């Protein structure tokens, strides 16, 4: 009796299990079909964004438009993992009344085949996603197409794709026998696994090694700029944007429209390989991205009946106006607002070298405010020394400490002024690595933190951690020689050792009390409002 009753129970159990498998499998297949349909309709980036959508859903309550095409699949996919266990039992009843053994065998075979092809593509279903909590969602860079998830930058297939993409960006007007494509800069050294999706280049292997010397493929001003970026001669968000626009002015000046082409379309196409080149030399900053968007818009808006000379003059004028408005005048406005916040007897803490913060402090000093400054610095860049030099040259009373001493010095501090590389759409501040530390410690000591940032650095990107999108600097910068010995000299030979030289980090809006922009003093959470207003204006 027991035996008889067991088998039907067993059967039911197995059937239920099969049912689970079947239904899960069915759901998976349905989803895959939908995905493939979408793939054929839209671009390829929909698939990885499905997972990224789910992971970002809790954080991206206010995330704006750029992901609208991927919203519908997200909505369909998001409820999918939840009701899978719930819908087992009803769908178990829906099973077709075929020979179960045959169906079982068929489905198992298909499953094996799909699993085999899945493993190659790196395609993941929803059950894999929770198993990899640290998996970074795909990057969202304004200029480059998104890479599929879980694909490492060193993967040879990805490198091949990137090389092909660079090749496709053939530079205009180059001779047919010369290689008209931008060379691919190869990564250097062992990368820490958390950041394996980012590029890591060596300063000793510049991109110019692979270019011909009288650079005909890329305008010499751009080659010079790329070199200055990669060697750090032009560093700092504002400086890089200004230098970029200066180089673009030279490009526009030397540009001649080829016959049968329109300036508005041809010039934009000509700028594309230059931007790829600069990106390879050093990843573009948010401010540079916004400047490039602006220029491209201006170029496309040139009416076709406009003569070339006049069009060029207009463009050069636009660039000058942009710099004047967004950088120079903005700095003046921010200085005016900030001076209201600086009172006599203040002890102000600054971190690293921010051109804007230095400007503010110099202006405040000229307006005869009595304050002293504590400059906090950190390795390996040690930019604080440059800030210190500029402030002391003005005559401001300064103290210099390293970031390890921040908690000891904070009881003396009355305000913290920080610069920003970019302000993200969810209110996070992206700045030099170490800024979030300082903001955190300041919050613990109840010291107000004020971030100064021009509006052209506001970015529509959303990030909550520093892993997703960052920049890896040359790891050899961390090596230091003291008293004749260099301990890390042969770090590459130690297989378990990796050097990590991060450049940026993000500070949550809870630690920031006020953001001073050229539009006024706003709280961190009003950044999306500003972005929306800017979009409406344009």
């Amino acid at each position, binding site marked *: 009796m027991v035996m008889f009753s067991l088998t039907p129970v067993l059967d039911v159990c197995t059937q239920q299990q099969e049912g689970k498998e079947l239904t899960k499998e069915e759901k998976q297949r349905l989803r895959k079909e939908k995905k493939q349909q979408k793939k054929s309709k839209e671009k390829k980036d929909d698939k990885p964004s499905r997972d990224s959508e789910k992971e970002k859903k809790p954080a991206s309550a206010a995330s704006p438009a750029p992901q609208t095409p991927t919203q519908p699949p997200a909505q369909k996919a998001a409820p999918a993992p939840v009701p899978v266990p719930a819908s087992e039992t009803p769908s178990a009843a829906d099973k077709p009344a075929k020979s179960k053994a045959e169906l079982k065998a068929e489905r198992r075979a298909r499953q094996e085949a799909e699993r085999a092809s899945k493993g190659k593509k790196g395609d993941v279903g929803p059950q894999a996603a929770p198993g990899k909590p640290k998996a970074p969602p795909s990057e969202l860079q304004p200029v480059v197409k998104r890479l599929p998830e879980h694909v490492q930058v060193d993967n040879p297939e990805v490198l091949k794709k990137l090389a092909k993409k660079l090749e496709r960006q053939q530079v205009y007007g180059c001779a047919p026998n010369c290689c008209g494509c931008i060379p691919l800069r190869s990564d250097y050294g062992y990368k820490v696994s958390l950041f394996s999706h980012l590029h890591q280049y060596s300063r000793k292997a510049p991109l110019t*090694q692979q270019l011909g010397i009288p*650079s005909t493929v890329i305008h010499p001003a751009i080659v010079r700029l790329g*070199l200055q970026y990669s060697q750090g001669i*032009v*560093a700092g968000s504002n*400086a890089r944007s200004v*230098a970029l626009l200066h180089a673009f002015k030279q490009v526009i000046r030397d540009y001649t429209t080829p016959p049968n082409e329109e300036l508005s379309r041809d010039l934009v196409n000509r700028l594309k390989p230059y931007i790829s080149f600069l990106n390879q030399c050093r990843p573009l900053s948010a401010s540079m991205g916004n400047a490039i968007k602006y220029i491209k818009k201006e170029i496309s808006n040139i009416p076709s009946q406009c003569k070339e000379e006049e069009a060029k003059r207009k463009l050069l004028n636009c660039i000058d106006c942009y710099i004047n408005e967004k950088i120079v005048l903005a700095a003046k406005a921010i200085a005016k607002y900030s001076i209201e916040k600086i009172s006599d007897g203040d002890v102000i803490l600054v971190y690293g*070298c921010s051109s804007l913060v230095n400007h503010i402090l110099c202006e405040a000093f000229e307006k005869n405010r009595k304050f002293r400054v504590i400059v906090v610095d950190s390795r390996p860049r040690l930019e604080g*020394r440059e800030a210190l*030099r500029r402030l002391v040259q003005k005559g401001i009373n300064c103290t210099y400490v390293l970031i390890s001493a921040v908690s000891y010095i904070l009881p003396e501090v009355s305000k913290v002024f920080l610069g920003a590389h970019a302000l993200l759409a969810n209110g996070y501040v992206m700045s030099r690595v170490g800024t979030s530390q300082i903001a955190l410690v300041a919050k613990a000591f109840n010291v107000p933190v004020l971030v100064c940032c021009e509006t052209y650095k506001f970015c529509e990107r959303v990030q909550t951690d520093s892993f997703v999108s960052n920049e890896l600097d040359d790891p050899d910068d961390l090596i230091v020689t003291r008293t004749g010995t260099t301990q890390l000299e042969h770090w590459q030979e130690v297989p378990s050792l990796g050097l990590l030289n991060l450049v940026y980090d993000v500070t949550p809006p809870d630690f920031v009390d006020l953001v001073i922009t050229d539009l006024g003093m706003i709280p961190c959470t009003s950044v999306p409002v500003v972005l929306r207003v800017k979009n409406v204006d344009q």
Partner: protein
Amino acid sequence: MELQAVLMAAGGGSRMTDLTYNTPKAMLPVGNKPLMWYPLNLLERMGFEEVIVITTKEVQKMMSTDPKMKLDVKMKLDVVCIQEDGDMGTADALRHIQQKIKTDILVVSCDLITDVALHEVVDLFRAHNATLAMLMSKAHEFTETVPGQKGKKKTAEQRDFVGVDQSGKRLLFMANEADLEDGLSIRKSIMRKHPRMHIKTGLVDAHLYCLKKAVVDFLADNKSISSIRGELVPYLVRKQFSKTTNCPKIKDDAEDQNQKKNDEPHGRQNPLKLCECFIISTPNSPLLQLAQDRSCWNDHRGDMSEAYHGGKLRCYVHIMDEGPCYRVNTLAAYIEANRLAPKLFEEVPVHPSAVISERCQMGSDSYIGAMCQIADKTSIKRSTIGNSTTVKEKVKVANSIIMHGVTIEEGCNIQGSVICSNAVIGRGADLKYCLVGNGQQIEPEGKDHWHEHTP
């Protein structure tokens, strides 16, 4: 266009007259290729498509007939001929072609054999917006014995003192021993700006310079400078720290000078000051200045001044630690180059059109040129044999350089010698460490050691 290449091939080879009195230095065979093929090859590999070649009519004639030049050099050569009397220095030559120069230039000498990665020099020029960027190399000891000179005679070469800053890239000081009478004196202004200076003496100047266009314009107005290496480069290095360069009032000074020009009794000094303004005080465009102000980079630390100490004139040098870099301007260098240059370029040891009999013993590091005829029972070791040379039976050639069109009769024994073109070595001659000039004839059974046979 970014850079224009200029090849200086009009030099007379004054330090190896034995070799050059008949063949111009630019066309001397090194590894069976004319000497000027090497810098042209370097430029071509780097991606240049056009070169301005400054040379004499004789060299131009030889160039057009030489097969190597016609086939291997694919760049467009714009040949400019100048007089052969040798009074024109390198800077004078630049002044001569000033009209052709539209952008920054890269000046190369025809006697440079190297495989340097040129981007190292040019990157310094680009990144720092330098006025001058040059290449230097650690001097190599010459190991080969030089024919015609008994024993290892160390030529009393004048030493060059080169001062670089701590990074090894910025050129702070350059002087030749001949110009320093009492000793090396360094100005206080340099020491204040660059407290740590490394002074090196064992460096060879490769005579490869990247110069800004403004320098060429300066040369055009300033006719007193005639040599790049001897006068222009030390002048530019000195002017980096000159007081006038850092003075913001220089534009006003220039205007005052202009006005006073007619009144001044010695009007010759004024043009110099005016010309200095060209290279020295070209103001940065305002955007570039803004970018530099906002950038948090400085090339030095420890004092209160901005990047580059605010100086607009900057000279940089790239010093090659390893890798071949030869200037073939002496006999010893010529021999060394012959030994090493073919290995550099992976020359085919035996030219396909050479006729070599089977019973000839040829070492692996010998190079035979085109259309040679090598007879039986010869032994050729560590030597270079030029085109159209005939070597008869039972000849032993070791450690020698034999140029084109030479006839070597039977039974000769040639060691460590240099035999120039069209010479005839008689039967049974025994030459050790000799230098046989162009078209000379050695009598049969002659025994010569350490001799120079030149007319």
